[in-house]
C-alpha cells in the first residue's frame, strides 16, 4: 500500500501556514501601533477608525492561516488513520503530524 | 628592537585570542540599571537648573545605551554606557556662561562650543550650535560598562533613542 499523505510535506506546509499566522499577527500589531498624533483633527479620527479596521482585517487573516494549518494537519491525520488500517507506516507517520509553531 | 618584536608578537597573538565570551552575570545587568538610574537622576537635576536658567523647558529628550568607541580587535562593542540627551530652546544670549555660574558644584570647564561637567564618575556637557541659534543641547552619560554587544542586544533594558521624561 502507499500512503495518501506525504507527512514531511504536510508538516512543513502546515508549519508555513503557522508562520503566516505569526507574520499577519505581527502586521496587526504593527498597524495597531500607527499613531494618529501627526494628523490634523479632520483626518485623525478617520485614521483611528482605519487602523482599527485593518487591525481586525490582519487578525482575521492571521486566524484564517492558523485554521489552514490546523485543517491541513487534521485532514492529513484523518487520511493517515484510514491508511493505518492497512499500512503500519501510516501509524508511524501519524505521530509526526503535530504543530511545532 | 628585540623587545619591540616580542611586543608586536604578543599584540598579534592577542588579536587571535580575543573574542568569545561566556554568559553575562546578573551583576552586569544590575550595574547597567544602576547607571541608568544615576544618569537619569543627574540629567533631571541638570535639566531643572537649565530650565530655570534659560527660561525654557527640555525638548526632544531621549535615552540610549551607546556602544563605547574603544572596540579592541573587533568591530563589535565590548562595553556600553547609558546616556540622556535633550535640547533647550532659549533666547538667552550667553547660555553657557549662565549655566556655568549655576553649576559651579560640578566643576564646569569650557571647550570651544560646550561646557563640560562631572559628577562622580558621570560626565555631562551643554553645547551650543553655531548654525542653529537658540538651541542648547544637553548630554549626560555614565562610564563604560563591560558587556558584549550580543548580550546587550538580547537584554530587555537595551534602548536606543527612546523618549524619556526629564520632569
Amino acid at each position, binding site marked *: 500500500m502507499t*500512503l*495518501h*499523505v506525504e507527512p514531511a510535506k504536510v*508538516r512543513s506546509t502546515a508549519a508555513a501556514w503557522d508562520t503566516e499566522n505569526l*507574520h499577519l499577527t505581527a502586521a496587526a500589531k504593527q498597524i495597531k501601533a*500607527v499613531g494618529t498624533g501627526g494628523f490634523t483633527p479632520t483626518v485623525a479620527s478617520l485614521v483611528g477608525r482605519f487602523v482599527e479596521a485593518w487591525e481586525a482585517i490582519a487578525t482575521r487573516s492571521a486566524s484564517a492561516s492558523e485554521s489552514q494549518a490546523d485543517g491541513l494537519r487534521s485532514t492529513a491525520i484523518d487520511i493517515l488513520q484510514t491508511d493505518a488500517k492497512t499500512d503500519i507506516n501510516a501509524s508511524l507517520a501519524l505521530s509526526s503530524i503535530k504543530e511545532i509553531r | 628592537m628585540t623587545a619591540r*618584536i616580542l611586543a608586536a608578537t604578543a599584540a*598579534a597573538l592577542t588579536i587571535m585570542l580575543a573574542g568569545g565570551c561566556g554568559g553575562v552575570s546578573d551583576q552586569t545587568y544590575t550595574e547597567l540599571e544602576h547607571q541608568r538610574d544615576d544618569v537619569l537622576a543627574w540629567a533631571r537635576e541638570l535639566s531643572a537648573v537649565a530650565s530655570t536658567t534659560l527660561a525654557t523647558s527640555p525638548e526632544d529628550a531621549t535615552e540610549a545605551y551607546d556602544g563605547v568607541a574603544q572596540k579592541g580587535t573587533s*568591530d563589535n562593542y565590548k562595553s556600553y554606557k547609558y546616556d540622556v540627551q535633550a535640547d533647550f530652546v532659549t533666547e538667552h544670549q550667553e547660555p553657557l556662561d549662565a549655566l556655568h555660574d549655576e553649576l559651579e558644584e560640578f566643576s564646569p570647564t569650557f571647550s570651544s562650543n560646550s561646557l563640560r561637567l562631572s559628577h562622580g564618575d558621570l560626565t555631562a556637557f551643554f553645547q551650543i550650535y553655531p*548654525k542653529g541659534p537658540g538651541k542648547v543641547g544637553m548630554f549626560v552619560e555614565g562610564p563604560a560598562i563591560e558587556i558584549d554587544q550580543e548580550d546587550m542586544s538580547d537584554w530587555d533594558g537595551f534602548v536606543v533613542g527612546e523618549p524619556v521624561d526629564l520632569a
Partner: protein
Amino acid sequence: MTITISLPPTPNETPEFDADGEKVQDAGTTLRTSSSIFDDHGSFVGGKAKDSGLLDGQAAAAYVQALSPIGRHADACSLALRAAANAVLGHGDELVDLAKRHQQLRSDREHLAREAAALASRANPLPTDEAELQRLKADCDRCTSQIEAYESDLVRWTEDLKASEDKVTAALRGAMTETQIDQTYAGVADPADAARDSMPSGKDPKAVKAWWDGLTEEQRAALIAADPEIVGNTDGIPAADRSAANTVSLDRDLAELGAIPEDQRTDDEQTRYDNAKAADVARDKIERSKDPMTNEHYEAQVYIYDPMAFGGDGRVAMAVGDLDTARNVSVSVPGLTTDMESAQSNAENVINLHQAASFEGGTSTATMFWIGYDAPSGADSAGVATEGMAAAGGERLADTLDGLNAMRSDDFHLTAIGHSYGSTTVAHAMTDHHPGADDVVLLGSPGAGDDADSADDLGVGSGHVFVGTNSEDLVGRLGQTGWVSPAAIGAGVLTGPLGGVVAQMAGAGLGHNPAEDDFGAVRFQAESTSRGSIPNIDDHVKYYDHDTESLANMAHIVNGQYDDVVRAGQVHDPWYRGPVDPESDRTPTSPDTDGS
C-alpha cells in the same frame, strides 16, 4: 490737492496648525511595511501553500480550491493597504511642506500686523507736511498690497491643506471594509508585475537608472512595497527609493521574526533577526545623532540591506545624510572581523566623520558605511591572510561606486575610504575596476594590494590618494616593505624584523605599504594622543574617533579642502635596516572635531 490715505487692514490670523508631517510619514511607512506582509502572504498562498503533501485526490483538490479566495483576498488586501499607505506617505510629504509654508505665513503675519499698527500710529494724528503725507500714503499702499499677498497665500495654503486632507481621506475611506477591498482590488493586476518584467536583465547601473526613471510613480511605489529586496539592493536606483524599500524589508523582518518566539526560530530566522536588529540599532544611532553645527537630527539612508548574504554574515550599507543630493559623498569600507552585526560601530564611524565634516565647514555631506563584501570575520578569519576576499570585495565596491555615479546626474565629490583590510579592498576596486571616485583614503592599511605598485595605479592621481597610518598601528606596519617582504615570506624566505608568524597571523602579503615614500601617496597626520609605545592593535582602531588628527584630516578630504589636510612624513625603508617612521617621534595633537 487732496491726498487719500487708506490705512492697511489688520491681516487675518494664521490658523493653528500642529500637524506633524514626519509622524504622518512614519505612519505611512508602517502601513507600507504591513502591506508588504500581505503581499508576501498572497505570494505564499499562490505558491508554496499549494504543495500540501496531501496525495488523496479529493482532499487535495478541496484544499487547493479553498486557497483561491484566500490568495485573491490577500492580494487585494496588499493592494488596498499599499494604496492607503502611499496616500498617507504623500499626505505626510504635503504636511511637511505645508508646515514650512505655515511658519512663513505666521512670520509674515506678525511682521505685517506690526507694520500696519505702526502706520496707524503714524496716521494719528495725520502729518501736516505734504511730503510726509505722500510717504505715509506710499507706505500704506505698499503694506496693503503685502497684506493682500499674504491673504492670498493664506487662502491658497488653506485650500492646499484641504485638498491634501480630502485626498488622504478619500483613499482611507475607500479601503475600510473587506467588502470594499475585494470589490475594488480583487483580481486587479499589481502594477509592480509589469514594472518588474521590464527591468533590464544586466546589472549596468545606467540602464537600471534609465529603467527606473521611465516607470510611473505608481509603478515605483508598487515595486518598493512588493519587491523591496530588488529595489533596495540594485545599483542605479536612487538612494531615497532604495532606502524606502530597505526600510520595508528591515521593518518587516523585525516585525515578522520578532513575532516568532525565540525558541521556535530556525537558525536562518535567528540569523536574519540578529542582523535586522543590528541594522535597526545602527539606524537608530544615526537618527539620534545630530549635526554639531546646526543641532539638526541626522537622517539615515539604508542603501543596502541583505541580511542573509555571505552565509548569514549579511550585507548592509547605511548613510548619514542624503546620497542623492549631497555635494560631498564618502563610502567607508571596514576590514577585519566585519559582518552585519558590526553595523552599529560602523555607523558611529560615519556619524563621527559627518560631524567632523560639518564642523570643518562642510554643508552638504553624506557619509556611508559599506559592509557590502564578505570581509574576513569569525570563522572566515583565516581569509585575511590572502587577497582573495579583498579582490572580490573590490569588485562589489566598484559596483556600488558605479551605482552612486549612475544614480546622480550632477557632478558630486566622491571619496572612497578603506580601513585595515578594507583599504586593500578599496585599492583593489580602484586598480582593478576604475570606478569614478575622486579621492581615496587608506587607513591603517596592511597593504594596497598586489596590483598597485604606486599611488598612481589607483587611477585618481597620486595627489588624491591619501594615507592615514598611526606609527604604532600594528596592522599599518604589515605592508610589503623592502626586504621585509611578505611576498618573500610566502616564498618561504622568512627575513626581516616582523618575521613570518606575526605577518601571516595578522594577514600580511596584501601589497605595498601605502604610507611608504616610494608608493607616492599623500600621507596625512593620524597619530593619537593615547598612542602606545610599541606596535599595538588599539592604535589600529582610533582613526574615526573624535578629536583625532585622522578624523580631522579625513573631514577635510571629504570636504575637498585639500590645503587643510595636514601632511605627515612618509615611512622610509633603507636597505640596511627596518622601516623608519618619522611620525613616531612627533608629539600627537588632538584637534577639536565636533565642538564639544
